């Protein structure tokens, strides 16, 4: 299970896989989801199989790895690395298929919680806070992109490296404290950030006038309480669209 083949992948192959990982979802569709993307990312490593690109092992592995698969795109590197190692180690195809099926769910839910529901909102709030504190366009955009992508690119690299080094034993890596406890701590940091950043940003957008800012914040808090009661039943952006449409119509007609 732990032959050195995958560990000694040439650097150019690892680099090609990492770069392709960024384009993992290029052919995302409702039938195979990430599947063809997984095959696309693994392809440079599969060329190392006996017989090369014209060999039977290469073709059957590429076909197998291009079938249905789903995961969070940033954590898909874990699967890509593990599957690459399994293919290069010559693991039985039936076992690889079972492994693919078992891994998809956890990689999706862990990634969604950590990235989409924690890291992304946190980074957005930090950038909004920089804006509220009077930051320039460059400072706001630079802060957001540097902060967010520090986490993004590191997570992708960690996933690929972990998958390649652990192979089919990769499940234990999902117990990593960052993946398990990260959403809790990032969530708290995001809540703290929201308390500072949102009022600061509202102040800057609404402009000078203490009464005006006080009114805006009071109205916002009441609205948030009402919206919070609706939770998943209401889509906030659709409400915003409706409110703005009515307001624009009113302002144009009166």
């Amino acid at each position, binding site marked *: 299970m732990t032959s050195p083949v995958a560990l000694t992948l040439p650097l150019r192959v690892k680099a090609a896989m990492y770069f392709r990982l960024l384009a993992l979802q290029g052919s995302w569709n409702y039938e195979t*989801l990430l599947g063809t993307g997984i095959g696309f990312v693994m392809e440079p490593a599969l060329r190392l199989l006996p017989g090369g690109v014209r060999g039977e092992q290469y073709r059957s592995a590429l076909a197998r790895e291009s079938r249905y698969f789903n995961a969070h795109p940033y954590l898909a590197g874990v699967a890509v690395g593990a599957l690459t190692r399994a293919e290069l180690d010559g693991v039985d195809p039936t076992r690889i298929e079972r492994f693919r099926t078992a891994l998809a769910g956890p990689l999706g839910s862990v990634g969604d919680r950590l990235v989409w529901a924690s890291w992304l909102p946190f980074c957005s709030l930090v950038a909004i806070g920089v804006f509220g504190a009077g930051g320039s366009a460059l400072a706001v955009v630079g802060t957001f992109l540097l902060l967010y992508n520090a986490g993004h690119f590191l997570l992708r690299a960690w996933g690929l490296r972990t998958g390649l080094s652990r192979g089919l034993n990769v499940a234990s890596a999902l117990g990593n404290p960052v993946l398990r406890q990260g959403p809790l701590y990032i969530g708290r940091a995001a809540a703290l950030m929201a308390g500072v950043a949102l009022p600061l940003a509202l102040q800057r957008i609404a402009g000078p*006038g203490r009464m005006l800012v006080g009114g805006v914040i009071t109205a916002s808090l009441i609205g948030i309480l009402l919206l919070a009661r609706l939770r998943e039943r*209401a889509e906030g952006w659709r409400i915003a669209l409706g409110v703005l449409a009515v307001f624009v119509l009113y302002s144009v007609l009166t």
Partner: protein
Amino acid sequence: MNLAQALPIGLLGALLGLDVVSFPQAMISRPIVAATLAGGFIGNPQGGLLIGVVLEMIALDTLPFGASRYPEWGSAGVVGGTLYAAQSPSMPGALPATLLAALLTASISGWSMVVLRRTIAVRLESVRDRLEEGSRDALHSFHLMGMSLDLLRGALVTITAMLIFAPIVRAIVAIWGAESAASHVVVVVTAAIVAGGALWKVFHSVRHVLWFFLAGVAMWGATLVGRR
């Protein structure tokens, strides 16, 4: 705005639209970035930033979970940033009219992503046999076709939205009736409510989260006192 003026903006929309899902998902498509870049593209990054922040607050409500349908903020950010940065900030209707145009673009662009994904699935049927044979050429061309179509999608959405909304926004701003302060307040309160509701939806299950939020509000209060 004519087609020649809309084309460079369309190219920016195409690149940022590609970032949403296909490549490289580095979140340059988030409205706070996209709108600022678009504003900078026409020489007014601060204008782009302002509407970008408002759109970002609203975008907090939509998280790109897997196969779910969600608004596409890359092209919408470009359209919003360009339209707002082109207006005089003293015009009271500029912010609400542009924001409405950007939200409509986000909605339409989200629908275009669904169409794209269905189109790729249809195309999959015609190459399935070759993929099952392990054809490298078939896989590469299929994958690159998906990315190219996504690039084209972003460009088409952005150019179409610019051609439709630029004259409409200009007309709305010209005949706007409400006063400046009220116009800003409606936009700001709406964005704040959506952002607050979205954050509660995401983080309400985190233990002690309300205390952390209140601590943040206290820190904001301290900054107010410090400024006096």
